[in-house]
């Protein structure tokens, strides 16, 4: 299968598993993976995979959106594994189709993304692992795709873009999807985006003036919404074997949301009758949060406190490579080395991802 086995690169001395690595699939590269009529649509309509939201990611062209480093497996290995020292990238396709208005088109895109990922990345190197993108508009179709992906040995979990799914993801509407994930031992990673903001938070999308406002809010709002919904609606009790990860919103939103929910739960327990524990306990037992983009308090000691409160048992290392707010692995590693014991460092860089994605490495 593999053309070359990566010799483990090290950041410090740790085996580094990166839980959030993105592709940026060019439209023309998806064409062969789509059936008609979608193939012709992708080739000829010029509408691409989803409507554009109009926001400028480049700060008026100040930084370039250059995705050459992720166009082939070789490029990604070179830029992320060799240059930045990541040993095992867990790759998602950055499929955003869960916020698209057209259901069948979204399902076609989902399958195309997954086949593209497997053919062009996961089958190329042994150390490349992947998440199957799942779109949420039709949970039965999502369940079928989870069943299809389960036989792929390099698929280690599912990836759900959670800025846009309607209703929120703890709703019983999605039970067949979660059942399929649980039956197939594929745990779930959520990834928000500013891209879905216009669907999830349309009033704010139309009234905020700058992209910095949208981007700062979009990721944590989406993760908060999903976490609250999964816990309060009892999804965490209905599917007890599933583990849940929240990518790309950093860490600090987690203590706030959990401690607030603890308080609300004790006041209004009968509105969350499936729960058997405190909300915080579900996080500690079943949930992970990815480090990137690591917040930047003015005092470094505040960062140590935040990491301590979230807990090194529940943090996954992630770069978000190759996006403009990615974190350099070396920087996080240095923070952690300064602040924590070696065992804590190993949990964050390696061990927690092994548990979350049930990896044998």
């Amino acid at each position: 299968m593999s053309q070359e086995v990566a010799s483990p690169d090290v950041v410090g001395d740790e085996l580094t598993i990166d839980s959030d690595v993105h592709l940026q699939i060019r439209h023309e590269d998806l064409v062969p993976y789509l059936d008609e009529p979608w193939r012709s649509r992708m080739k000829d309509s010029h509408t691409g995979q989803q409507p554009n939201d109009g926001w400028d990611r480049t700060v008026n062209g100040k930084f370039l959106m250059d995705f050459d480093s992720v166009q082939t497996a070789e490029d990604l290995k070179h830029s992320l594994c060799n240059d930045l020292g990541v040993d095992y990238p867990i790759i998602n396709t950055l499929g955003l189709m869960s916020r698209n208005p057209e259901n069948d088109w979204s399902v076609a895109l989902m399958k195309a993304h997954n086949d593209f990922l497997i053919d062009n990345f996961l089958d190329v190197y042994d150390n490349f692992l992947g998440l199957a993108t799942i779109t949420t508009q039709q949970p039965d179709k999502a369940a079928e795709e989870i069943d299809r992906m389960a036989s792929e040995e390099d698929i280690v979990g599912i990836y759900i873009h959670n800025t846009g799914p309607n209703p929120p993801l703890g709703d019983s509407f999605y039970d067949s999807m979660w059942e399929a994930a649980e039956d197939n031992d594929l745990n779930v990673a959520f990834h928000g985006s500013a891209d879905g903001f216009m669907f999830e938070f349309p009033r704010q999308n139309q009234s905020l003036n700058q992209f910095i406002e949208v981007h700062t809010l979009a990721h944590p709002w989406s993760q908060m919404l999903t976490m609250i919904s999964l816990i309060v609606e009892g999804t965490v009790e209905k599917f007890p074997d599933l583990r849940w990860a929240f990518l790309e919103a950093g860490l600090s939103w987690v203590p706030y949301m959990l401690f607030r929910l603890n308080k609300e739960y004790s006041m209004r327990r009968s509105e969350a009758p499936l729960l058997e524990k405190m909300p915080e306990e579900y996080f500690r037992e079943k949930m992970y949060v990815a480090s990137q983009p690591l917040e930047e308090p003015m005092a470094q000691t505040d960062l140590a406190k935040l990491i301590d409160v979230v807990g090194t048992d529940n943090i996954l290392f992630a770069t978000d490579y190759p996006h403009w707010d990615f974190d350099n692995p070396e920087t996080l590693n240095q923070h952690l080395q300064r602040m924590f014991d070696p065992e804590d460092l190993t949990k964050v860089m390696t061990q927690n991802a092994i548990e979350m994605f049930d990896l044998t490495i």
Partner: protein
Amino acid sequence: MKEYNIAKEDEIGVGERIVTEIEGREIAVFNVDGEYVAYLNWCFHQAGPCCEGKVTGTTEATWDSENLTQTLTYTREDEILNCPWHGWEYDIQTGECISRSGVSLPSYPVRIEEGNIILSL
């Protein structure tokens, strides 16, 4: 202090730069309006290659509290170095970071001698 001959004067035109390695450090030499400045190619934020980013202007604002009006200006064209990793802005003439207070790029003296650009380290 050691001196290094970086290039001939005419090899770095106005607005151009070269990035070179000296004693294991990546250093960039810029020609800013005919003056040469040199900085370590190492961003204070997350160690990115800040000297390889675009050189642009930037947006500034003034607030008139009498009339409750904000005026935006695009200004300092060709004076702002943008780190290509996450966009931190540096003043190309001084190396001072304008997006995080208290941060400056390490700089190196540069002079011209008989048409050569000489950097001291």
